[in-house]
């Protein structure tokens, strides 16, 4: 397959790479990914959308404290997970629950964090998925570290590092991109430019022609891709992963997408954006687009649709059941993991808490 992504100095003002347009038609010269991949991707999108909806419902029911939804960004969420091999790593943010789930982590485990159980509900090592990062852009450096270590050890691991448009303004974004480029680390920086950092619009984050253009300053390829086009994302991210794996170093990929929901349920998006703006993006919905394409090309029959819908419902039921259950947390676990072995100070504090609890029980 010929390369779609710039491999030299990115063309800063280039239009986003797109393979399927808003009416579901294949556009441009580049061939589409195999149909099977697109169908699998479509299934993933349905599951991701359902997960976003289900998690939102759980918040409304008071089962989750908060949920940062990726509705509208599902193509990004699924594509970035789907292009990875088993041994690769994913570094997600708080908004990337659907990507973590697409990587194979049980969404109940992922969401248990937002039920307040613990800071991370899944095993990062078993899944090769880092804990969802809250402090913006900080995780990008960890991603570079994992990648650099892999390279030093001679492993062919690739690391997919996610962040938002807002996070590109942080110093750690800069340091991570630069370290990766200098060390030729096998990382793909994947920026989901969903146009807002909470209430702050892109124009207040950057006046560069694109965020992908930042790649120039690090000496790495940068690609702007239509973030609601699953096919284009798969190709662009896939190429970046392949380049990284082949020793070609990092790539900065910017997805042009949109956060359809508010920042979280606690946010009031009406304060900073219009309904019209949101409505405009409904036309570009990543699910509709892929479904139309697959339906029109005959790749998706009613049976398949029904099968996928059932899978999504099953997942949602599993999530409801898993998060409905009350899971007690042991107060003494407060002290268990701070150090491999608790310090004498922590042992003392643990004993004091235990005494309190025993007294309460008595």
């Amino acid at each position, binding site marked *: 397959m010929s390369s779609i992504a710039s491999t030299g100095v990115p063309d800063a003002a280039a239009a986003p790479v797109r393979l399927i347009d808003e009416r579901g038609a294949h556009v441009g010269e580049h061939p589409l990914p195999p149909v099977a991949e697109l169908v699998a991707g479509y299934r993933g999108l349905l599951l991701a959308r359902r997960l976003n909806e289900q998690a939102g419902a759980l918040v409304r029911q008071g089962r989750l404290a908060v949920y940062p939804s990726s509705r509208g960004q599902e193509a990004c969420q699924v594509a970035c997970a789907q292009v990875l091999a088993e041994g690769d790593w994913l570094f997600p943010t708080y908004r990337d629950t659907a990507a973590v789930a697409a990587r194979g982590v049980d969404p109940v485990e992922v969401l248990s*964090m937002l039920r307040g159980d613990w*800071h991370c509900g899944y095993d990062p090592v078993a899944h090769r998925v880092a804990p969802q990062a809250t402090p913006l852009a900080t995780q990008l450096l960890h991603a570079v570290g994992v990648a650099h270590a892999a390279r030093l050890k001679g492993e062919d691991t690739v690391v997919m590092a996610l962040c938002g448009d*807002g996070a590109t303004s942080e110093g750690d974004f800069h340091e991570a991109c630069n370290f990766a480029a200098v060390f030729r680390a096998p990382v793909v920086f994947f920026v989901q430019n969903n146009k807002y950092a*909470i*209430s702050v619009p892109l124009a207040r984050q950057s006046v560069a022609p694109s965020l992908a253009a930042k790649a120039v300053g690090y000496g790495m390829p940068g690609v702007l891709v239509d973030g609601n086009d699953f096919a284009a994302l798969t190709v662009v991210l896939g190429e970046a992963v392949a380049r990284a794996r082949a020793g070609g170093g990092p790539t900065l990929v910017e997805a042009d997408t949109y956060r359809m929901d508010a920042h979280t349920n*606690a946010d009031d998006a009406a304060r900073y954006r219009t309904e019209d703006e949101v409505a405009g993006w409904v036309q570009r919905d990543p699910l509709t687009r892929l479904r139309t394409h697959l339906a029109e090309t005959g790749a998706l029959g009613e049976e398949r649709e029904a099968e996928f819908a059932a899978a999504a419902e099953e997942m949602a039921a599993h999530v409801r059941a898993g998060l409905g259950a009350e899971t007690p947390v042991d107060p003494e676990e*407060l002290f268990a993991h701070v150090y491999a072995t608790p310090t004498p*100070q922590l042992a003392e504090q643990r004993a004091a808490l235990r005494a*309190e609890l025993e007294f309460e029980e008595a």
Partner: protein
Amino acid sequence: MPATKMTMAQAINTALRDAMTADDRVVVFGEDVGQLGGVFRVTDGLHRDFGEARCFDTPLAESGIVGLAVGMAMNGMRPVVEMQFDAFAYPAFEQIASHVAKLGNRTRGRVRLPMVIRIPYAGGIGGVEHHCDSSEAYYAHTPGLTVVTPATNADAYGLLRASIDSPDPVVFLEPKKRYFAKEEVDVAEAVPPIGRAVVRKPGRDATLIAYGPSVPVALAAAEQAATEGRDLGVVDLRSIVPFDDDTVCAEVRRTGRAVVIAEAPGFASVASEIAARVTERCFHHLEAPVRRVTGFDVPYPAPKLEHHFLPGTDRILDAVDTLQWQDSWEVTA
């Protein structure tokens, strides 16, 4: 203007408004403080009422925000910046420790930095990790910073006005769990000078020393103790740096017993400092060692466990119970 009921968020908003009205060098900026009015709505309406030049959003970068404020203060403005949550001030730590705190000293007072860094801090809101740190020790340990934290809405108003008026940089720590509780605030009241603690409740038997979010907890403990026949006083520091030794020590010398209460992990903390300095100054008045009731030395826990972490009334009263009352009946008599 008579006293009005308002939340702490409103009291701070009013203080910003009044300061901006009184002095057009005062500018407010940070993440989401503009059109949105801040994630806690503390800057609500300032962008609308004072315009983009006086209240604006920045790119998302905390070191950038604080560094920008340093430069603007060097050039005659009085920036008031917001860090969205406690742990998100850490990217600005170098700017705060190496410049905000030191520039006045570095320049032999030729450059003063009249700026305020507002930080919603501490826990009790069921927040996810990084949203509930009690980070006061980092700032209090750094010479050159003034560190202030209100416990009441009236103080939130008054201390913020005083902080904005201060010629020195102030780290203004807002106990976020108090943001939405209503209390009477009289904005016409004299602004309290920074550096004065206040005795919230006099008490004969022992003194509870607290600040910020722990003051209401201490008062609740004192109330409960009263029903059990023990008369506990409560001192609210209001300002950690400068520290009001006189007020604190006067109380402790009277009671001979003290418990320090703070949410932050206790090790090498502001609570350690209070215990150490009160002991240095009141040693021969003490019937028992000064006790500390603080957060454990663990990262701030996930919501389900935070109530075990936070110093609550029971834990405070347990500590009071250990103050060796039996040996000293003559003092309490």
